[in-house]
C-alpha cells in the first residue's frame, strides 16, 4: 500500500493521542517504579556522555603524562590516572560513545536478522521454522562467550567483528522470542482478518505480526544491550577486545584488574562502575519496558 493511501485513512491526531496514551502509561509505570525512573535518568546521562563526551572530558583521553601516572583520585583527576598518566575520568566519559555504539549496533543487527528469522519461522512454520531452529540450536550448543571468542579470534579483533560476534551469539535468543511470539499470533483473529482482507502472507508477517511483536522485542533489546557491553569487556579481558589506546570500559577494567592487588584500585574501579551502571541501566529499562508492555499489568 502506498503511504499516502494509508495516510488518508489515519488522521494525525490519532497518532498523537496514541502516543500520549502510551506516554501517560509510561509515566504511571515509572511513577509506580522509581527504579525505572532512575534508570532512565542514567540512560540520559550515558547518552549525553556518548554524544558530547569529547567536549565534556576535562583532559584528552589519549594524552599520556608519565609525570602524573598512577595518581589516586584528586581534585584535578577525579578518577585518578592510569599507568600512562591518562586521566581516567576523561577516558570513562569518552568511552561511553564506543560502548554504546557496540551495544546499539550489535543489538540492531541481531534484531534485524534474528527477529526477522524468528518471525518467519514462527509465522510460516514448516521448513523455514526447521532451518531457523537448527541454526539457533547449533549456535546455542556452544557456550556463547566461547563462540564469541572464536569468532573474534577468527575474524580479527576489530570493533566490527566484536559487534558481529555479539550479534551472532544473541541470534538464538531473538529468533526464539520472535518465533514464539509470532506463532502465538499466527492464529490470532486479527491475522485471519488480515488474510480475509487479501493481504499476502509476507505482508501480514511484516505489517501485522512485526509491529505487534516489537514491544516485546524492545524489552529483550534493552537487556541484550547490557549483555553486549559485558561481552565486549570479557573479550577485552582475554585480549580480544578493541585496539588500544581507544578508551573502552571493558579494556580499561581488564588493564586495571591486575593493579587491584597492588592497591591501584581506581584504575579498574571507575570504568568498572561505569560499565556496571550502563549494564544496570539497560537491565532496569528492560524491566521497566516489560512492565509497560506487559498486558497483565496494563489494567
Amino acid at each position, binding site marked *: 500500500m502506498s503511504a499516502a493511501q494509508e495516510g488518508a485513512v489515519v488522521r494525525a491526531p490519532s497518532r498523537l493521542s496514541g502516543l500520549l496514551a502510551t506516554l501517560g502509561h509510561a509515566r504511571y509505570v515509572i511513577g509506580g*517504579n*522509581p527504579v525505572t525512573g532512575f534508570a532512565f535518568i542514567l540512560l540520559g546521562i550515558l547518552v549525553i556522555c556518548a554524544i558530547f563526551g569529547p567536549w565534556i572530558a576535562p583532559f584528552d583521553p589519549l594524552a599520556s603524562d608519565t609525570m602524573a601516572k598512577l595518581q589516586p583520585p584528586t581534585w584535578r583527576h577525579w578518577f585518578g590516572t592510569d599507568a600512562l598518566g591518562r586521566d581516567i575520568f576523561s577516558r570513562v566519559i569518552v568511552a561511553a560513545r564506543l560502548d554504546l555504539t557496540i551495544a546499539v549496533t550489535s543489538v540492531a543487527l541481531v534484531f534485524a536478522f534474528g527477529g526477522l528469522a524468528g518471525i518467519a519461522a514462527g509465522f510460516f512454520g514448516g521448513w523455514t521454522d526447521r532451518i531457523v531452529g537448527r541454526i539457533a540450536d547449533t549456535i546455542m*550448543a556452544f*557456550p556463547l562467550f*566461547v563462540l564469541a571468542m572464536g569468532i573474534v*579470534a577468527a575474524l580479527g579483533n576489530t570493533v566490527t567483528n566484536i559487534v558481529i560476534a555479539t550479534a551472532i551469539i544473541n541470534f538464538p535468543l531473538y529468533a526464539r522470542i520472535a518465533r514464539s511470539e509470532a506463532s502465538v499470533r499466527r492464529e490470532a483473529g486479527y491475522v485471519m482478518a488480515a488474510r480475509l482482507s487479501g493481504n499476502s502472507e509476507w505482508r501480514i508477517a511484516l505489517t501485522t505480526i512485526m509491529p505487534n511483536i516489537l514491544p516485546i522485542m524492545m524489552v529483550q533489546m534493552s537487556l541484550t544491550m547490557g549483555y553486549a557491553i*559485558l561481552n565486549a569487556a570479557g573479550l577485552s*579481558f582475554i585480549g580480544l577486545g578493541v585496539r588500544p589506546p581507544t578508551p573502552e570500559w571493558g579494556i580499561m577494567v581488564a588493564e586495571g584488574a591486575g593493579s587491584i592487588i597492588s592497591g591501584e584500585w581506581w584504575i579498574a574501579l571507575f570504568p568498572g562502575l561505569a560499565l556496571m*551502571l550502563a549494564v544496570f541501566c539497560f537491565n532496569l529499562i528492560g524491566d521497566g519496558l516489560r512492565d509497560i508492555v506487559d498486558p497483565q499489568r496494563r489494567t
Partner: protein
Amino acid sequence: MLKVLFGRILTTIPALIGVVVVSFLLTRVLPGDTAAYFAGPAATPQAIEEVKKKLGLDRPLPEQFRRYVVDLSHGDLGQSLTTGQPVVADLKARLPASAELTLFGLILSLLIAVPLGILAAVKQGSFIDHACRAIATAGVSLPVFFTGLLLVYLFYFIWQISPAPLGRLDVFASAPPTVTGFYLIDSLLARDWEAFRSSLAQLALPGITLAIFSLAPIARITRASMLAVLSMDFVRTARASGLPARKVVMTYAFRNAMLPVITTLGMVFSFLLGANVLVEKVFAWPGVGSYAVEALIASDFAPVQGFVLAMAILYIALNLMIDLSYRLIDPRLESTT
C-alpha cells in the same frame, strides 16, 4: 520414557552435525599458523613446512575434515599442542573441575535467587521487590572477571579468610581417589575431611563469583513466573478454599512456576559455561574453559574442537535432563509421549 529419551537424542543430531562443521571451520579460519607457532622461535620456512606436514595441515580442507570426522568416530579428538596431551585425556581430566565449579555456582545461585524471586513476586511492588531487582541486576552488571578479582583481593589478600586462588585444592593437600571427579563428592566418599574442607574452601570464591553472575536471570524468571502463576485461577481457588498463604505459594504456585525456571536453567548453564572461561582464568582453575581459551589463543585446533563438542554434548545432555525433569513435574507432558 526411554522412547522419549531416544527421540530427543535423535532430534539433536542435526545440531550436533552443525556443531562439528562449525567448530571445524571456525578453527580452520583462525588466522594463526599452528605450524609456525610450534616450529619454534628460530624456525626457517622449511622447518615450518616440515611441522605442517607432520600435523597434516598441508592437505586440502575437505581432506582435513574427512580425517577429522574419521578420527572423531574412533573417539579420537586429536592432540593438544599446548599441553601435548590427547584432547580426550585433557578433557577427561578437566571436565569434572569445570562441571563441579559450574554446578556449585548454579546451586548456590539457585539457593539465593529462587527464594529472592518468590519473595519479590509475593511482595510485588514492595521495597523487597525493588531491592531484589536491584541486587540481582547489579550482580549481572559486573564483568565476571572483575567480580572474581575483587573477591580475591578482599577475601584472600585483605581479610585473609579465603585460601590462595590456586586451583581446586590447597597446594599441599592431595586429591581424593577419583570416583566422580568432583572433589567435594569424592572426598566425602573417601571420608577425607581435610580434602573436603580444602576443596570447599577453594570452590567458595569462584563459586560465589559465578553465583553472583547468574543470580539475575534466575531471580527474574522466578519472579515473573511466580507473578504469572499467582494471578491464575487455581491460585484463587486455593485461596478461596482457605488454604493458608504459605501452602498456596509453595505447593500450588511455586511448583507450577518451576517449569519456566527449569527451562531457563538450561540457558543459565550455557551462560555460566561461558563465564567459566573468565573465572577459571582468574582462579587458576584447571577446567575446560581456560583450556579452550589458551588453545584458541594458540590456534590449537584440536582442543577447541574437542571442547566445543564436549560442551555441545553436555548442553544436549543437560537439556535432556531438563526435559525429563519437566515431565516429572508436569503430568501434562507425560501423556503426550
